């Protein structure tokens, strides 16, 4: 069996970042890179399946510049067998890669790798579209399930028994036929720490670089009806109430305020 896990390096802005007027992105120097949190769970789920089932290969795929290799190696250190990284001059020039473009690129990788199962994160903690997995499933015509928080794989029967987290604490139990795309929710497992040896061994695992042409894709794969028009920091509002008086008086005032706000009754 082959499992493809999509992973993404995401940037987090430092607390003191600045966004000049008219800028469409936060400057590099304010950014710190890490593996997308949801993908940590996808990687762990893939690796656990491989540990429980012989002859299972776990391949991770990412769209990202060379810099992202450092982050991707963490997945290799945790037990992913090999990695694919797609980058291209055409991608370098794109300010904004939308869901559809990502799905097209990943679909080309699926065509190349022919996995039985694709695991994606529910969303990425940078742009947060939460749609890549499902858009990919649609494009490659796989079965799919979104927001999976429990997975029980019947490899023989080619069936994934999944729990899906719905609104309001409701859980749905579904059987999905393989091949399938599942978008993985945080909390489905406990992602392991990489071991010291794992990190060393990951240095010699393969990260295959692909350009668009290697996947029979043209630069226009990145064309999008969406464009990024502006980026700004929303005004945040906060209010503080300072109570004054003896502790008893302060407690009374707090109680009154909580009552007014409907936090407590009375």
């Amino acid at each position, binding site marked *: 069996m082959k499992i493809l896990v999509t992973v993404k390096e995401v940037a987090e802005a430092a607390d003191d970042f600045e966004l000049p007027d008219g800028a469409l992105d936060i400057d590099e120097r304010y950014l710190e890179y890490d593996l997308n949190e949801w993908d940590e769970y996808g990687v762990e789920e893939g690796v*656990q399946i491989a*540990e*429980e089932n012989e002859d299972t290969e776990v391949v991770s795929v990412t769209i990202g510049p060379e810099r992202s290799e450092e982050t991707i190696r*963490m997945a290799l*250190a945790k037990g992913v067998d090999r990695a694919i990284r797609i980058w291209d001059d055409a991608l370098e020039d794109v300010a904004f890669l939308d869901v559809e473009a990502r799905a097209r690129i990943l679909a080309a990788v699926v065509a190349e790798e022919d996995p039985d199962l694709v695991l994606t994160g529910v969303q990425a903690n940078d742009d947060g579209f939460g749609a890549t997995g499902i858009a990919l499933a649609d494009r490659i015509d796989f079965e799919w399930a979104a927001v999976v928080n429990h997975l029980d794989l019947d490899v023989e029967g080619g069936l994934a028994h999944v729990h899906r987290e719905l609104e309001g604490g409701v859980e749905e139990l579904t059987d999905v036929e393989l091949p399938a795309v599942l978008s993985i929710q945080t909390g489905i*497992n*406990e992602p*392991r*720490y*990489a*071991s*010291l*040896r*794992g*990190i*060393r061994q990951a240095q010699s695992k393969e990260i295959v670089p692909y350009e668009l042409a290697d996947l029979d894709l043209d630069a226009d794969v990145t064309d999008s009806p969406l464009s990024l028009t502006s980026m700004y920091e929303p005004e945040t509002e906060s209010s503080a109430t300072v109570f004054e*008086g*003896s*502790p008893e008086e302060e407690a009374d005032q707090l109680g009154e305020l909580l009552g007014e706000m409907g936090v407590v009754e009375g």
Partner: protein
Amino acid sequence: MASEGEHASDDDRDGTSDERVAEGEYPFLVDLLDSGRVSVGSSDRENHAGDWGTPDDRKVRPDAVVWPESAAEVSGVLEAANERGIPVTPYAAGTGLEGNATPAYGGISMDLTRMDAILDVRPDDFQVDVEAGAIGSTVDEAVSSDGLTFPPLPSSGDISTIGGMIATDASGMQTVRYGEVRDWVLELEAVLADGTVITAGSKAVKTSSGYNLKDLLVGSEGTLGVVTRATLRLAGRPEQIRGGRAIFETLDDAAAAVFDAVRSGVDVARIELLDDTTVAMANAYLDTGLPDAPMVFLEFHANHGIDEEIDFCRGIFEAHDVAEFEMAAEEAEMAKLWQARRELAYAVESYDPDLVSLHPGDVTVPISKYPEMVRYIKELSAEYDLLAPCFGHAGDGNVHYSVMVDPESDAERERGEEVYREIVERAIEWGGTATGEHGIGQGKREYLEAEHGPESVETMRTIKRALDPNDTLNPGKIFPETAEGKRVTVPATSDD
């Protein structure tokens, strides 16, 4: 002494304001620390009046609380306090179990929790430099992306500080494989009672250079110096981690199995025992539906061959009639198997609202005596008709026990104290120690001489007087005479 007769109206004002501090007993503090980092307010003082193990009637409010942010500030406060004869008690997360951080003689409580930076991770050297107030699990987390870990963390690793662990020479569940905190400290920066800043130890993994001041400071419970920075050694995270649980029919079998596994060289990373009383408490607390039977919790770490090691252990446990030996396939399942052990402290505390646990027992004996030690505690518990749950880091020969008594009944309290004392005395008689990891603090002062002999304790006093002649740092701890209100500055006479 702690201040008394405070004016109630003072409580209504901000205790950290410069005017308030300047009007207080130690106006000089205003010049030493920025506004907001000194307090004479009643709630700050109350929050530093005792630690986790201090009963309400033993709490002592310090006269002021300070929050230094550098070794220089620690030094400034100590120098000034030492000149004026004011006691200074280092205070970190306050999770100590023996009143270690209780400011027994009032004075200044020095809160180190603002010095919590992770200064430098050096994965190539397996080292990290941290400030003393850093929380243990934060340090462990900070080195995890390099495949490293700080292995001797106590069970309280996510609620206690590196400085507190160094000061008590803490240890934890993984000590059976990795050793105690002392073994993982390479170098310390510390401030002595008169404000002198020293470094002790070395960043080399071995050194034969001079007196070993580093190991003198480790375990000194804040009585010799305030640790401000530490260089810690780290271990590689193992490739394979497996955990599980074994259930026994009798406590004798469980204890014998632990002893046998350790003496046979089974490479366990954790081996914890819970007696049936403790299991019953955990089951009641967690509603587990498990049998109220003695249990042993296990974890194995390896880079290869973990299954062979587990089989070896299983074989040994089978020779001791293990009823159930269950190993988890993955982390989440392991966490589930271990739940009863993890939630224990809270389970014991909330078991019976009418009973309180006397002092937290911490005896440690050579492993060959471990089964007998556990049996002895259960026999005493039966003889005195008092509940005494036993658990702990079995692989180290460390038994934690609580003697549960009705706090209203003096007779029962007295019986409880008697049980507690007999257990400690027996442990010492068998070549063990009154405290494997919590320290002497206030709670175990009376056993110091029995354990080390009067000459050794006098040698300790000589060191204390040499480094802290005014008894400025954390007075009232460790030394037996302070239990009767004397100070270590007063030489003990031979007929004392």
